[in-house]
């Protein structure tokens, strides 16, 4: 019985370990995507401000 138990444990542990690694990798990928998106959003805001879109939004909102 003990032998069977330890065999099961040996089969399960590498699988759990690989799942854990995949989860950490997934978290890291999400973190990177999130930060890239934040940078892109800030870049879009700055580009919009450069083209004076703030005034276009303001004028449109005030004219209503």
């Amino acid at each position: 019985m003990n032998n069977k138990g330890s065999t099961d444990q040996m089969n399960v542990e590498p699988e759990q370990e690989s799942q854990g690694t995949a989860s950490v990798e997934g978290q890291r990928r999400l973190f990177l995507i999130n930060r890239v998106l934040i940078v892109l959003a800030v870049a879009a805001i700055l580009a919009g401000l450069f083209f004076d879109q703030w005034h276009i939004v303001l004028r449109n909102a005030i004219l209503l």
Partner: protein
Amino acid sequence: MNKPPNNNELSESWRFWLGLAQKRGFVQIMSALTLNSYFTQRFTKGLPCPALNCYACPAAAFACPIGSIQHFVGRRKVPLYVLGVVGLVGALIGRASCGWFCPFGWFQELVYKLPTPKLRLPNRFNWTRYVVLAVLVGVVPTITREPWFCKLCPAGMLEAGIPVVLIEPGVRHLIGTLYWVKIGILGVFLAWMSATRRPFCRWACPLGALWSPLNPISSFRLQVDQDICIRCDRCQAVCPVDIRVYEDPTSGACIRCLQCVPECPVSCISVTSPGWSVEADRTGLPGAA
């Protein structure tokens, strides 16, 4: 199977989110007042607000992002500034704005509290909000150069169409067929929101449609410890958008209201963020996230 933590084992960060979840009503009231604070509009109306709040409302202090996007689209310009603001909010907090800051979302929750017969509808067809976004905010304004979503928006009717007509008698002669169509749309949604939770957010909101794909990658996310979860569906019972949080904690439908967090009987739902998930987990124990 992990053991559910008792109250003494809960981390300070988890207690913080729990306390915040209980203050959501107050935040919603303050947000509705801030977005419609009137006196600041000279300085702030060039800023797109993180919610669907009509800028034609006499008290509106910020610009509606959806109205602004249509304006740019109608002028054949890329709305970089507005999309940047919307994208930044989405990247940071996902659809949490819908759950915490949107006055129309709050209004729907209030109407749902009316003692009327309730109708639970599955979220199967909630892709319709993407159709609204593509057709009424994208394609039609590009062709007609008119903001067609605004012309039909029930939030606009409630916050601007009706108040403006009541306040300014001089505009009453402008009321035409479209006004009554818009009243009809608002009436349909009012009846629907008294029976079903947040129908506009779930099936029609184009701003929610912009934020939904950002939910899984936003900095502010939910996570469920599947080993502890007992699938009791208490999370769904309190969820304003009627979702089972354990099925997909990063679902695009989730509005991050956190109502499920204190409700969970085994405390398996926690707030997390890419990069600092360990600090924000339920027990605060290293490696427990």
